[in-house]
């Protein structure tokens, strides 16, 4: 893999991390309205997966969607403005953290309904299939979402129609405040097997592994060989949502969190770049700094963006006919 590619992966992961840490800070300062779920610790999944996609490929995302959007190429400035509810946000302030959408980049939307994006991704695959395009859709969903029935329906439909969709489960070990394994029978990736859907797990904290495994799935999909179900094993290093400690007591041990911190996907990859690819710390530091700068600028952009005018609430319910 070329150093450029490696650095692109690194940069995207760092961008997500810095964006999310800024979001956490802003949330603590009371600057962000609504619910905010950050992606800290899971960066390798989105970045590895989206690194094999084209701009014309599609993704569907979740309530924890910032990482997916950034990985697919979204600009942090209108993202941040959206989180602030401003007019220059991706959705002009109508969507917020849980609903960031950029159709021009194939981002069909974060989604506040757990499992809500699964049929949508399947439909995007139908469009590619019907129109004879070689596009691929990656459907991100959580390990908690794997207990929503739409998964069965999607796997079956994608299997019989050989849809070019990669169902990518982010097994971050939790659904809200409950360990996923407490309420989830068996291994999630095996749920594809009865449908004859290629099914596998991958270390979700290893960006290159994710890239490789998703890459193979995407290639299969592009060749018309149908869907894949991939379970990426990772960990949500932060809470379920920002500010949760105000109303839930601790639900996991420090040791558990620490053990996963030791496997931080960014630290790991940074080490690899230095030791394995001979990239200097200074080079990586400068990327970090650039991304920090970009996120800082995004905040300035967001805070200087006006709120939408109240009556804009009435727009965009319907597209004008004949438009």
């Amino acid at each position: 893999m070329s150093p450029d590619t490696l650095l692109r992966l690194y940069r995207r992961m760092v961008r997500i991390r810095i964006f999310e840490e800024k979001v956490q800070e802003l949330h603590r300062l009371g600057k962000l309205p609504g619910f905010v779920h950050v992606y800290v610790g899971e960066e390798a999944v989105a970045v590895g997966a989206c690194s094999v996609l084209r701009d014309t490929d599609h993704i569907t995302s979740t309530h924890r969607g910032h990482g997916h959007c950034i990985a697919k190429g979204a600009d942090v400035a209108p993202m941040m403005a959206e989180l602030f509810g401003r007019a220059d946000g991706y959705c002009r302030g109508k969507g917020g953290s849980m609903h960031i959408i950029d159709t021009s980049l194939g981002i069909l939307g974060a989604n506040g309904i757990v499992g809500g994006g699964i049929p949508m991704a399947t439909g995007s695959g139908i469009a590619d299939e019907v129109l004879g395009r070689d596009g691929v859709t990656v459907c991100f969903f959580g390990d908690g979402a794997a207990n929503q029935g739409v998964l069965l329906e999607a796997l079956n439909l994608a299997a019989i129609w050989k849809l070019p969709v990669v169902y990518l489960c982010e097994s971050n070990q939790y659904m809200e405040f409950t360990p996923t394994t407490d309420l989830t029978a068996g291994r999630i990736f095996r749920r594809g097997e009865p449908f004859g859907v290629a099914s596998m797990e991958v270390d979700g904290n290893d960006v290159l592994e994710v890239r490789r495994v998703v890459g193979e799935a995407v290639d299969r999909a592009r060749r018309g060989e149908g869907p894949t179900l991939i379970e990426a094993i990772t960990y949500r290093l932060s809470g379920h949502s920002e500010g949760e400690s105000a109303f839930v007591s601790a639900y996991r041990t420090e040791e558990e969190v620490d053990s996963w911190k030791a496997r931080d996907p960014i630290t790991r990859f940074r080490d690899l770049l230095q030791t394995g690819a001979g990239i200097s710390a200074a080079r990586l530091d400068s990327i970090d700094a650039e991304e920090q700068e970009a996120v800082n600028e995004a905040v300035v952009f967001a805070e200087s963006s006006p709120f939408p005018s109240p009556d804009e609430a009435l727009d965009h319910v319907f597209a004008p006919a004949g438009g």
Partner: protein
Amino acid sequence: MARAYFMAAMNQALRAAMEEDETVIVMGEDVDRGVFGVTRGLIDTFGANRIRKTPISEAAFVGGAVGAAAAGLKPFAHVMFSSFFYVAMDQVANQAARLRYMSGGQVELPIVYFAGTGPSGSAAAQHSENPHSILMHTAGLKVVMPSTPYDAKGLMMAAIRDPNPVVYLADLRLSRRRESIPEDPYEIPLGVADVKRQGEDVTVVALASLVHVAVDVAGKLESDGVSVEVVDPRSLVPLDWDTIVASVRKTGRLVVADPARRLCGLAAEVIAGVSERAWDSLHSRPCRVTWPDIPVPFSPVLEGRLDVGADDLEQAIRTTMGSPVVAGSA
């Protein structure tokens, strides 16, 4: 012009739309045959790539339509009986009806959700819903419910061409209706009501199969010297208040006949909306004739009790006409 049944009229429009636009596709259970006839025969012309028989997975194909539309198709999703909307309600109410708005207008979702609707003769509680009021309340969905083959064809064309999710409800009580309609495609814009019968004394806003009941009752009352105007809204979102209000301004009296439950239904909306817009012209208490607030029962006798009949409507019209009780007279 050639005679066409209600469902065949929609079939004609769907066929024409598929001919004019390659991105129109059909999804649903048994759509090659088509339980109601709306999709029948299309597979021979358009093939299995565009006429897609789905498994019994409503959430997947109703929600699939959202993703497909966002990615470039114009899906016609055949939900079969409107009771099945509930099975896929998240995908209708939280996704299809929301995505454009939540995106700040980035995306268009040209989807038609088609279903046969209403009691069709002892189909009982899980195959006889008329959920139009629920869908009207949802916001983000257009809603169409025609009363004649002519309207059905023109509205179907408009629904398919519309860049928004349109729920198209075909009243199953109209299946056997037949009339001469133009063979070429034509469009009736959404949001334009039709005065199905002119009258002077009382406005009856009637929906779908009840339009015909209203026209019949109007004919009968004519001989008693009561002149009834029948307004058929045809589409419920958008609702053509102008036509409804103009009629009430002329007649001064309002009866709403809605084949659906009462609480928070279309009939309540029309009464409230007319009160807001034309209070000063209401010469007597507006009335609604609807189902009682019960599930749809099986036995023909019980279903008949639920149905809005000509008698119920006549009674309501006579009440409205008979005793011109003026608001505030007590």
